[in-house]
């Protein structure tokens, strides 16, 4: 009997069509059809400038958008051949790990809900809210943040961030241990996930599967350890490995990865060069609107040394922060807001960075930069022809390879296991179909 588990289905994970051939309750063959969320990411990037491609990368793996941002930025920085500031590397590591935690929280919450454990869903969503508040404090948005910039990040960390982050991490750890007590040794959970959806090591390697799904099958490959980027080589963390490659192992691997991510966040916060606190303005501080008025009237004497306060959406981009998170070159990143508003060189610099046919122009060439996404190796392959628009941006979506191997995990099991297994591989349609 051919049953179509259609693109609109009750599982919480993305749009996909599974054509299953059933014999009673047993699944004989499964064919997956994808492409229902194709949003032309790669083509859109070709039609926008290098910085304008950033919001498109947010929406790839929309549960961990910061990792996508920084992956793309890393690829372009490799092409440009520039080094980003030290502090910026730590900020990127910190925010990537926060994003990874939100991704794993969402995955486990959704798979728990699909198996009927609604309480675990609500508790993990509560934990995710704490992290969304942290992300909002730093970047300004909860989900689609466009925080990365070529050569750095958009703005520095706000005041009071350290305390908020440490508090939130404590609360997240509390929720994690609560859900651990609810699920890990729960008879029903173990019965439904153990020895279900087994992915053998050989299959995982032949399908090029990476990430928690492969690590649950015993393959010790983590991009953060194999090809360390930013400051991961200075962080101490473990990479959890599973044995059997079933749903239960994938669940355990994700839970442990969340704890390791919290460990990395604490280390990054502790080791941030320049400290976690925002730099206090020394000397005279005037409001940015007053600064603009003074500059327009021509009273520009001493304005290069003055510190300003800007409106909340621009906080963290002032002159005293700019060099901590953006590269120093004039052709690489926008000048600080005081420079833009108060002197003509800054304004010209700003224009040259923003206008069409100007802006960041990496030399012609290509670069591949892999990062450890929440689902596996997320790689950005970027080709430049020397102009202000990318010639080609290809994202290597980790879910794509996981989905290719999905049918080996479903065949031979029952119909009811389809949704459970499908949930545990964390298919994110935005990444799969781009």
């Amino acid at each position: 009997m051919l049953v179509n588990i259609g693109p609109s289905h009750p599982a919480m994970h993305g749009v996909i069509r599974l054509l299953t051939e059933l014999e009673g309750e047993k699944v004989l063959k499964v064919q997956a059809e994808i492409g229902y969320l194709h949003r032309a990411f790669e083509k859109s990037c070709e039609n926008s400038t290098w910085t304008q491609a950033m919001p498109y990368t947010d929406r790839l793996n929309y549960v961990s958008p910061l990792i996508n941002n920084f992956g793309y930025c890393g690829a372009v920085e490799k092409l440009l051949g520039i080094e980003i500031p030290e502090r910026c590397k730590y900020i990127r590591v910190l925010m990537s790990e926060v994003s990874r935690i939100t991704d794993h929280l969402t995955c486990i919450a959704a798979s728990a809900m699909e198996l009927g454990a609604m309480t675990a869903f609500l508790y993990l969503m509560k934990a995710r809210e704490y992290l969304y508040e942290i992300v909002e404090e730093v970047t300004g948005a909860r989900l689609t943040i466009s925080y990365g910039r070529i050569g750095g990040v958009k703005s520095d960390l706000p005041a009071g961030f350290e305390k908020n982050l440490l508090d939130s991490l404590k609360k997240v750890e509390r929720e994690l241990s609560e859900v651990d007590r609810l699920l890990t040794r729960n008879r029903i959970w173990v019965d439904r996930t153990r020895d279900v959806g087994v992915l053998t090591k050989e299959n995982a390697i032949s399908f090029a599967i990476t990430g928690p799904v492969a690590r649950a099958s015993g393959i010790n490959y983590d991009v953060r350890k194999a090809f360390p980027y930013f400051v991961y080589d200075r962080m101490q963390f473990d990479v959890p490995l599973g044995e059997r490659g079933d749903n239960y192992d994938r669940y355990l691997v994700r839970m442990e990865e969340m704890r390791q991510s919290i460990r990395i966040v604490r280390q990054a916060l502790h080791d941030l060069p320049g400290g976690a606190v925002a730099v206090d303005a020394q000397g005279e501080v005037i409001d940015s609107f007053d600064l603009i008025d003074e500059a327009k009237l021509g009273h520009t004497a001493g304005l290069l040394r003055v510190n300003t306060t800007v409106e909340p959406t621009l906080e963290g981009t002032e002159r005293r922060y700019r060099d901590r998170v953006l590269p120093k070159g004039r052709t690489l990143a926008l000048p600080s807001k005081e420079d833009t508003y108060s002197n003509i060189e800054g304004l010209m610099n700003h224009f040259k960075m923003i206008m069409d046919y100007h802006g960041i122009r990496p030399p012609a060439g290509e670069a591949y930069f892999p990062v450890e996404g929440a689902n596996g190796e997320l790689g950005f392959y970027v080709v430049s022809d020397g102009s202000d628009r990318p010639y080609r941006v290809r994202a290597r979506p980790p879910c794509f390879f996981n989905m290719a191997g999905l049918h080996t995990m479903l065949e031979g099991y029952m119909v009811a296991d389809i949704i459970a297994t499908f949930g545990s591989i964390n298919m994110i349609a935005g990444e799969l179909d781009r």
Partner: protein
Amino acid sequence: MSSEEGQGPGFFTSKLERMVGWARKYSIFQYPFVTACCGMEYMSTASGHYDMDRFGAGLPRFSPRQADVLFVVGTISHKMAPVLVRVYEQMCEPKWVVAFGVCTCTGGFYDNYATVQGIDTIVPVDIYIPGCPPRPEAVLDGLMKLQEKIEKQKQFY
């Protein structure tokens, strides 16, 4: 009281309309047609922090035959459009459609070959909630507007 034809809404008919409207607006069974990033904000809105359940809209029904509000959450591509129309047609009257997120309102910033530029080109829409993704507070505001609409509209029986 016995025959109301030709006299417009009478006292009891209008009271009945208001009661049916009140009952319908506080018992919304949604069909969350979730495709993309807005789904994350939908999940946040349905969870404990920004509760949708206190508006009576807490129970999603995953079959279109059992739902009355179709929440179209996330980008609809041209491949997905016939599926959306089919799900919409499978729902029974009275039904409402909420376009959640700017991709469903107007196509968002995906102005390309693959995206439907607004689902009101294929299904009739009652409430538009813009945002990329809309904050949960915006979703709740849209939900309240939907409730107002349900309460005040001429009821179908």
